[in-house]
């Protein structure tokens, strides 16, 4: 079986699901809402952005563990056999279905266990300009890391997910890194092993 054929069908699944099976909401409202949350956190933590990052991540995790079920239910896709497949699934299906975007997959590690998603558009951070004090520390879209972390964990992929760079911080692009730690083993009932 050829990889391109597979990926094309993933793309088709993503687009079809987005087009026909997804209730939609205005992207600007989404941006606005996320912004309100981040700004509330910044206020709560008195601009200790490290804590804000952690909270966003944690919030994302709690979303991801549930969102993945929704995703699987919509697409009925099976588990991926490798990270390449996973990366395409994330980019062409998951991002497409939920955020109507398709980040580019690049920067593969030589072991093919780590890759980057290039978010050249990001509905979370549309219009955002970081204040000076947040430029250094805040990963504005960190909720995404959490979501991916949570979602992947639910399909037995223990990964680390983090932002490498962000346009908001003055970087040339926004890069989200996903690195597989290990594939979790399916549990075995007591007595079967």
């Amino acid at each position, binding site marked *: 079986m050829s990889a391109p054929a597979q990926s094309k069908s993933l793309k088709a699944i993503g687009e079809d699901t987005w087009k026909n099976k997804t209730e939609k909401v205005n992207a600007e409202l989404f941006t606005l809402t996320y912004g309100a949350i981040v700004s509330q956190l910044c206020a709560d933590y008195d601009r200790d952005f490290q804590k804000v990052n952690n909270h966003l991540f944690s919030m994302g995790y709690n979303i991801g563990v549930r969102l*993945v079920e*929704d995703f699987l239910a919509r697409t*009925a896709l099976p588990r991926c056999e490798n990270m390449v497949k996973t990366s395409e699934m994330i980019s062409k299906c998951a991002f497409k279905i939920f955020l109507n975007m398709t980040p580019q997959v690049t920067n593969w590690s030589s072991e093919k266990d780590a890759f980057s998603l290039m978010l050249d558009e990001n509905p979370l951070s549309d219009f955002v300009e970081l204040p000076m004090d947040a430029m250094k520390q805040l990963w504005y879209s960190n909720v995404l890391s959490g979501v991916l972390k949570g979602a992947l964990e639910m399909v037995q992929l223990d990964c680390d997910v983090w932002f490498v760079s962000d346009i908001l911080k003055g970087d040339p692009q926004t890069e989200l890194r996903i690195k597989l730690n290990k594939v979790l083993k399916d*549990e075995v009932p007591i007595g*079967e092993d």
Partner: protein
Amino acid sequence: MAIYSFWIFDKHCNCIFDREWTLISNSASGTINSKQTEETAKLLYGMIYSLRSVTQKLSRDDTANDVRSISIGKYRIHTYCTASGLWFVLLSDYKQASYAHVLQYIHSHIYVKYVTHNILSPYDFAANENETRGQGFRKIGNRNFISSLEAFLAPMIAQ
């Protein structure tokens, strides 16, 4: 009677929901999340698990090669496994060739809606290590899930 019982197992090998019907004439008959069926659930899971292990060993490449249904004399056991490790299992009349779409519907329209999106409900029914590997006891108990499921499955009982 077209269907006899319905089960959901999670990735911790726990049965998190079961439903057994006893009367064809009464779709409300039978038990929900019953203690008595605990043993049956374990046996059922064990069987599916073993079969699955075998099939996976038989397959040549990495692509999925899952058990869809198991047919045994009077019954047919339909299984639907999600990538997140949930198993939806339906015991039916042997005549029913496939209930995959039914199980998929239950997953996507009932389970996701009333369990996954119910923020008051856990997404993982094992609260700690001791409740994994088939040792868990928590069940899906919320009325919206049950009533939707009943409404969906009721017509099939008498088919």
